[in-house]
């Protein structure tokens, strides 16, 4: 929709944007969220897509995703065969409520910075133990664990004027076995819960990522595969106020689904893991 309070668009910001950040500014990437709802507090948009950040760089250390990489480019990316968790990239794109047309513009970084519980790029990068490189307006840079970034529904650790520059997924995580489960109230709709379990090749561990059902991502690590009651208990102790209530699910249902699907994930990983 028209954002009628916007008075200026910075179409070609400095290579290191941010020093002149002021109240009423917003970083613009694909625009598919910003333009989808009223933004009465915004006055200026700063377009990051003109900075030409490399969308995807794959090498021996892993995968680097530029924040302005479109969902379309990520979906089209063919991961090396030895990245056993590679199919999660496409699976997570398919977890978007939006259609392929929106993927032509929507960006990976935009989805992460919107920080909705159901943001599938958050699920993906938390499950694959990514780090986020953040650029502050004073020129400093910090790298944070993806798990620490989203703090609640539509809330994250970005300071005013700070931006997400890139996401780095380590090879170790990409080489894990990955199993996922997702549930939506309507077919191909927005996620009610989106869960991913990963396991290191040759080991019996479990890294369980719980998203969409919770206001922020939850990651639970087990050095060895827990038994069913232990795994269920790990869900039981998630604080009650972390379960998310919105039109896409109730806290009770989300907790129930999470318990059901984590057990399925445990079973599926056990079926293919070393004894």
């Amino acid at each position: 929709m028209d954002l009628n309070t916007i008075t200026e668009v910075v179409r070609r910001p400095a290579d290191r944007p941010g020093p002149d950040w002021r109240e009423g500014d917003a970083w613009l990437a694909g625009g598919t969220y910003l333009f989808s709802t009223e933004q009465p507090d915004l006055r200026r948009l700063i377009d990051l897509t003109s900075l030409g950040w490399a969308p995807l760089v794959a090498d021996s250390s892993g995968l680097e995703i530029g924040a302005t990489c479109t969902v379309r480019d990520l979906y089209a990316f063919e991961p090396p065969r030895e990245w056993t968790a590679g199919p999660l990239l496409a699976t997570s794109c398919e977890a978007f409520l939006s259609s392929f047309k929106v993927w032509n513009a929507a960006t990976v970084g935009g989805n992460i910075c919107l920080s909705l519980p159901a943001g599938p790029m958050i699920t993906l990068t938390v499950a694959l133990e990514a780090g986020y490189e953040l650029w502050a307006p004073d020129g400093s840079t910090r790298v944070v664990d993806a798990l620490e970034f989203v703090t609640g529904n539509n809330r994250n650790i970005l300071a005013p004027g700070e931006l997400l520059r890139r996401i780095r997924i380590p090879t170790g995580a990409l080489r894990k076995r990955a199993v996922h489960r997702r549930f939506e109230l309507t077919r191909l709709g927005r996620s009610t819960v989106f869960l991913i379990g990963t396991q290191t090749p040759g080991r019996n561990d479990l890294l369980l990522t719980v998203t969409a059902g919770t206001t922020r991502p939850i990651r639970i690590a087990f050095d060895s595969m827990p038994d069913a009651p232990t795994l269920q208990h790990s869900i039981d102790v998630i604080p009650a106020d972390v379960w998310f209530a919105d039109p896409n699910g109730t806290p009770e249902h989300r907790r129930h689904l999470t318990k059901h699907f984590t057990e399925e994930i445990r079973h599926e990983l056990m079926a293919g893991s070393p004894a």
Partner: protein
Amino acid sequence: MTFTVNGRGFDEEPRPGQCLRTFLRSLGHFGVKKGCDAGDCGACTVWLDGQPVHSCITPAFRADGREVTTVEGLGSPGDLHPVQRQFRDAPGFQCGFCTAGMIMTSATLTEAQKDDLPRALKGNLCRCTGYRAIEDAVRGRTGVESAAPGKAMGTSVGAPAAEDVVTGRAEFTMDTRMEGMLHLKVLHSPHAHARIVSIDKSAALAVPGVRRVYTWQDVPRRRFNTAIHTDHLVDPDDTFILDNTVRFVGQRVVAVLADTVAAAEEGCRKVVVEYELLPAVFDPEEAMADGAPQLHGTDDPFVRDPVHNILLEIHSHIGDVDAGFAEADVVHEGTYTSPRVQHAHLETHGSIAWTADGRLNVRTSSQSPSIAKVKLAYLFALRPDQLRVFCKRVGGGFGGKQEVISEDLVALAALDTGRPVCLEYTREEEFTTASPRHPMALTVKLGAKADGTLTALQIRNVSNTGAYGNHGGETLYAGGAAVMIYRCPNKKYDAFAVYTNTVPSGALRGYGMTQPAFAVESAMDELARALHLDPLELRRRNIVRPGDPLVALHDGPDDVHFTEDGLGRCIDLVDAAMARTAHQPAPGPDWLVGSGVASSLHETAPPTDHISEAWVTLGDDLVYELAVGTVEFGEGTSTAHVQIAATQLGTTPGRIRLVQSDTDRTGFDTGAFASAGLFVAGNAVLRAANAVRDRILEFAAAHTGVHVVMCSMDDDGVRCGEQRVPLADLVALARARGIRFTAARKAYGSPRSVTSNTQGFRIAVHRVTGEIRILHSVQATDAGDVINPAQVRGQVEGGVAQGIGFALTENHLIDADGAMVNPNLRNYRIPTYADIPRTEVLLVPTSDSVGPMRSKGMAECCINPVSAALANALHDATGVRYRALPLTPERIFGRLNAIAPVTSRTAGPQ
């Protein structure tokens, strides 16, 4: 910036925050539609350098240096792109508002995407078709037929506007630009109940471009009702254009008129309103209790009990239900609730008004320009000759546009300023201020003998009309249809329409019958279980059959002609269809499978007055001009009217030119609702066409000396015995004598017929997650003699899909303060392609209709049995009865026999 649109170069700057959708429209590309303005519906899909994008969420400046393609650039009438041809020929549209986006998306699909249409089309919403027709269009299947002269009846001819729709040329309400047009935006109440103490306009008026700020003090202090009926006395006069009391979150507080939408929005933000908050009540039972906040005063004699917020009470008792229950072997009682749901027609409400030569012109998105004109004449004290109301093509209605909720403000501002004025609803305003379906709670008590014979039928219906009366009364009476369907000597119906501090309810497909159908048809299923009878068998024993009186609220004379057992045949057809698929396997080990059925019965016109007038004139170009007031919004009446006229005049649809929905160019028409667009207006068309035919034949007989019984229409000529006289000769001869072949005829909504249907579903329910999958859907319907089989099928499919949405995916959520939580299509989920199964549509041929050519309108009735059939199937699958809609997974999982909880041990989250 420079860019091209459809190959033509432009050098234009968009505003900084402008989206591509409005930018393209400002350049005249009106094929780019607004359905949601939020990226959810896909109606605005265009190509950027060949890639499809939603233009409403694309910053306009992204078009810099690029090629834009809109539906207009894909092909043009007479020179269609293959996909446009496919959508015309399937046909892949009804109202046509989503069509441009569907085509612009479909034309880019790869073969792999076509193999997964649920995913490929999930970014394109259609509220009309139920998606089967869309699939046929994408796959290139053809449903449209051509008709030989005089043979249009029973043929699936295409819609008259088809080529315009698929090329984006069909003009909808907002598809125009007028010099000097001003724009209105409305400031809505944030409070559920409040008195307006003061309004400070000064800051708003200081905003550059703001021309006026209208408050309750600036409008005629004249009460009216926004609901559209011929007889305004069936609705209370309880509404002002703008009021000094607000009674729901979202109610209009002020309207700001400005040069641009942006300035009007800014003006709304700058208005300072002081409210005195009043206690609010949201639940109708609480609203009826002593001491509840009172919403309305006592000025309107229509309102039965303003102290208890009771707009209307109905108490009807036929026979003696107590004696009936005493006589019963089994008594079942349950309370069934239906929530608020929204039409979600893809074109939002909107109107444009201007004055010219001392007359007010209103171009609007309405189901009845004639009644809108009557209401505006009353509100602004205008003589009928001082105003004109008309509709272009309307992008869906479903009852939502049987309401005057945008015309009043544009008329006010146009009369005030003399400038053209536009008001276009946002999608959010549709949800928060346009009139949804009445939430109803019905307690149904049924008594039956062991053999299933009903002995007593008792209903208590509490309907939530919201803050205003709108359709509150008529929908309450309409609920009688669910009582009428069964033969029973003892019937009691007590009903209340109650004011609450919620958005006013209104007309929606099924009109007060859908909620009672859910209740009664669920209760009948429960009764069948208690009696150990097959649910269809229980219905067979009790449905009204020809010869039975149709008794709902009164045991007296009626105007319904009912001589064939259409409903009995619908039940038999569904029974057989369900048996054919009875052995469908469950999708997996955790899935429970069950089936359910429900029926409904519906009169083919509303009980209140319904009038339509049609004019037919043979022009010098040998084309018949058919003028009729009925609006086309996807219900297909235009096609049917043309077919009726073509058949009677012995010609083809191509030689009928339709003039419609314009109070200056057509006669009076109550409106296209209650399936009356076919039944009533169709009869007017039939009679006018017959009259013109008879005049031509009599003239030809006199001219040739051949007796008129030997004369017949023959396309562009008249066959008189052995000779054939060209129409051109007859027209020339007639003109020489000052004769024109023209006639006007009126029709009324009485006598009426009944239409009926039965829906069957087989579903699978996941016993852990609560997910429901539909394995089989079948509806049998009595549509009488069918005028256009493809259209009838399309209407049933669309109605079933909408019913599935209301039962399984849509959830209108309200917070503790009465504000809607999910006023957008992203979170109020109408069905997508992926949600809707293909419904098997079975037509029962009957010939007892008094409609045009023994046809029956069935687009309304088809939705009524859907939710009950689903709830009954859910019970059959799970053993658990759900008496409250919607049947969404998070609402049903808790009562399913799910996995036993595993005992806890230690471990915790990081």
